[in-house]
């Protein structure tokens, strides 16, 4: 397992809503506006891609140089996702921290978008995907190596959260780790803590 070398890590913060009730067309202008208004100052945004016509697909994406932000529907579970593609640096924990931080910042921005109306609250449920099949193959050995890092990082951010961690079991997918905790997520506080680590 070489997570500390991997560039392809994603985090998806699940939303408390049904996939069928999500109107992705409303997200498209939001992402375009983020580009216009430089609302992701750490990113180099390139374009917006709408795959809302693909059932349980990647949804609507804001394509950036470092990775892609998306309102993702994969697995039939709507969520806010950041999929890192390059420029992740440091230890395994640093890399995980970077993708979680990107995801939470996007979630915070989306919550502020009035045009989206009542945007559902993020659940205390996050799904990590380790997309580099060479460096982080989907097997129990990799899972056993990564799961403690995920737990340690999460407890640093939310010390009382008692996260339940499990390995995803969808055939063919890259290694997926699901983390479920209790209580509501305070995005602002979590972003603050992650930024300090």
């Amino acid at each position, binding site marked *: 397992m070489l997570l500390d070398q991997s560039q392809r890590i994603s985090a998806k913060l699940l939303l408390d809503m049904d996939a069928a009730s999500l109107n992705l067309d409303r997200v498209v202008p939001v992402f375009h506006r983020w580009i216009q208004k430089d609302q992701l100052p750490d990113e180099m945004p*390139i374009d917006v891609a709408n795959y809302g016509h693909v059932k349980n697909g990647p949804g609507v994406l804001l394509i950036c140089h470092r990775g892609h932000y998306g309102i993702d529907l994969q697995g039939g579970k709507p969520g806010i996702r950041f999929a890192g593609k390059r420029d992740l640096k440091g230890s395994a924990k640093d890399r995980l921290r970077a993708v979680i931080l990107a995801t939470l910042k996007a979630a915070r921005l989306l919550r502020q978008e009035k045009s989206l109306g009542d945007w559902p609250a993020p659940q205390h449920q996050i799904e990590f995907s380790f997309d580099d099949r060479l460096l982080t193959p989907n097997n129990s050995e990799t899972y056993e190596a990564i799961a403690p890092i995920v737990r340690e990082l999460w407890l640093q951010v939310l010390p009382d959260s008692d996260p339940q961690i499990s390995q995803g079991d*969808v055939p063919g997918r890259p290694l997926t780790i699901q983390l479920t905790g209790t209580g509501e997520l305070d995005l602002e506080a979590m972003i603050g803590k992650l930024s300090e680590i």
Partner: protein
Amino acid sequence: MSLPTWKERLADSTDPTLADEIDIFASQIALRKQGKVDESVFAETRLRRGAYGQRYDNGKRHDGKKVREISFPNSGITSKGPGTEWDAPGMLRIKIPYGAFSAAQMDVVAELAEEYSEGISHATTRQDIQIHYLHLEDSPDIMRRLAAVGITTREACGNSVRNITGCVRAGVCGGEQFDITPYAEACYQFLLGHPDAQDFGRKIKVAFSGCEGESCGLVSIHDIGFVAAKRNSDDGNEERGFKMVVGGGLGAVPHQAKTLEDFVPLEEILPLSQAICRVFARLGEKRNRARARLKFLIAKTGIEEFRRLVHEERKTLTFDPNWSDLVHAPFDSDKPLRQSAPLPQASGEIDSNGFHSWQKTNVRQQRQENYSTFFVTLPLGDISSDQLRALASLSRKFTGDTTRITVDQNLAFRWASNADLPAIHAELIDMGLADGGAEHIEDVTSCPGTDTCKLGISASRGLAGELHKQLSGSDLDEAVQKLQIKISGCFNSCGQHHVADIGFYGVSRKVNGYTVPHFQVVLGGQWTENGGAYGLAIVAIPSKNIPEVVRRICASFVEERQSDEAFQQYIKRIGKVTIRQRLDDLRDVPGHLADPSYYSDWGDPREYTTGDMGIGECAGAVISPVQFGLADSERIVFEAQVKLDENESKSAAELAYRSMLVAAKTLAATKATGLTDDPDTIVNSFQEHFLKTKLFFDPFAKGKFGNYFLQAHQDAGGDVSKEVSEDLARQRIEEAQLFIEAAHACYGRMSVT
């Protein structure tokens, strides 16, 4: 500690030749990054490996308010080619010969899309798969992983022999002469990397069809087309061979392929193809890309002379055992995985889950009893990695490796036992892939357009998605259900709009000081008979009114068709003049304040224009003399079409030329005073102010459209008594339309500055 690599991991499972080629490409990437390879040379190198550019790869993007620089890391240090940033996302085109897509290949493509891209694979109109938003430096690993499942991206782009396409129902169709698959495979193996196919001015596209009548092979739109044929040989036995056609092609100026030979024995199809490549490499245009396709060479030489040249060349070829060995090589044809059995009796469950409506549109009986081919409709040709893996699993369970990518951007699964169809349908429902409508009106074909293509003018995918939404589930009359709608984002015709019943291609118009996305409406095309006839553009309509165009045309066809009259015959009988009149009011664009939606494109909320931002809404629409003049030129080129429909080729060509003169004079009048109607004066003025200054130059096509005008002017000064062929008249009309579009674009640029 050294990191594991895909190269090491896959060393034992990769064909050594493919592995070497990819290693060389990886070295070329490294050398280019060090500045040791010329950028133009590198651009063609990567294109020949299937690595394309993508929209905004020049580091500039209009965000709806202004053009923004995208400051890619290596900007100013190195590039992937002229005007192409090193770190900009690109597209990889993955060649799938005749669309045969195995389960193992599906799994790998799904993984690649997931890891390196955004989790979407896109099926193209030439049976390829494309993956977007890739970084060039990842491409060698991607290619290695593809090579491990027998796929090469070599010659997927560039001036080479592109993917060889073929009927998806080959071997299972009741109407075919014989299964073309082994011969398409032989041709692919023979021409891939062939030394005689490396020095072209442009690409060559090859297609195989099992019959004359259907559309699956579309040989008429290909540079080299093969149609299965049989004849009785001297010994009384039936002999297999192919009718060979050459010089077809869509693009800006489409040409129908012409018959090279009515019957070519199997052993001759490869040497004759080789001879065609050599003639094309030797005599084809090299400097002017706009005239470099095989169709232009044949138009220049005439088919008789071209035929003579090819046969002369054939005589000079050194014998190659592959000519015979490849076409007679043992070929592992598709075999059924499951026993044939009839469809079970209807049950409540089957009736309630939409099986029968899916079966009606998406299942075709094979000639083999109790076996069917079913089609999985992919919305806009897109499929997620999860779906692709699920389909791979489905094929392993029910059909084996019999899947083909279709030219309609769908997937065809052959050799399904009829007894399994309900279970297959149930699994497709779970995957979100059980939509019906395959090869029906709602199954709209589209190129990538402005979504990802550098050349896109209008949002073809956005429009296709909207039409799909509006047409799906609507209670359409039987007569229109099987009409084909095909959309291209520009005149280059990757969406194959010329051979659709109703085609569209993207253009823009300056209206009320804003640039407004439009589509030209193309009618008269024929999808059957391998793309048997090409339609022509009759009028440009704002993008937002296109759904109403479709509604009106369909409604009038349903109302006015005579007995079993086909759509193409109906259009011919009613006439384009009438159709155009019926669409005339849809040309109007409301003021920006009244309806700003007209000023952005389907699925893209950005304001379409850049030039007139900040200029307030006019109290009333102010039409400039240029707009009037260009509208007049459009009227004249439309009259040219009418003459062509009336078989008056000479008048049609003259009118097409005159329309260019009017457009040229309109533009020239903005720079010169006192212009007369004398053609030479107009040409001189246009040359001075628009061609020499490059003001008329298209950002990508450069001076191509201006040259159409100069050529037409030169021809007009020749022998006036000379007959004009229908092909030439059609070509001139197409060129005139493109010239006028370029004039609109030029006027748009002038308005900005």
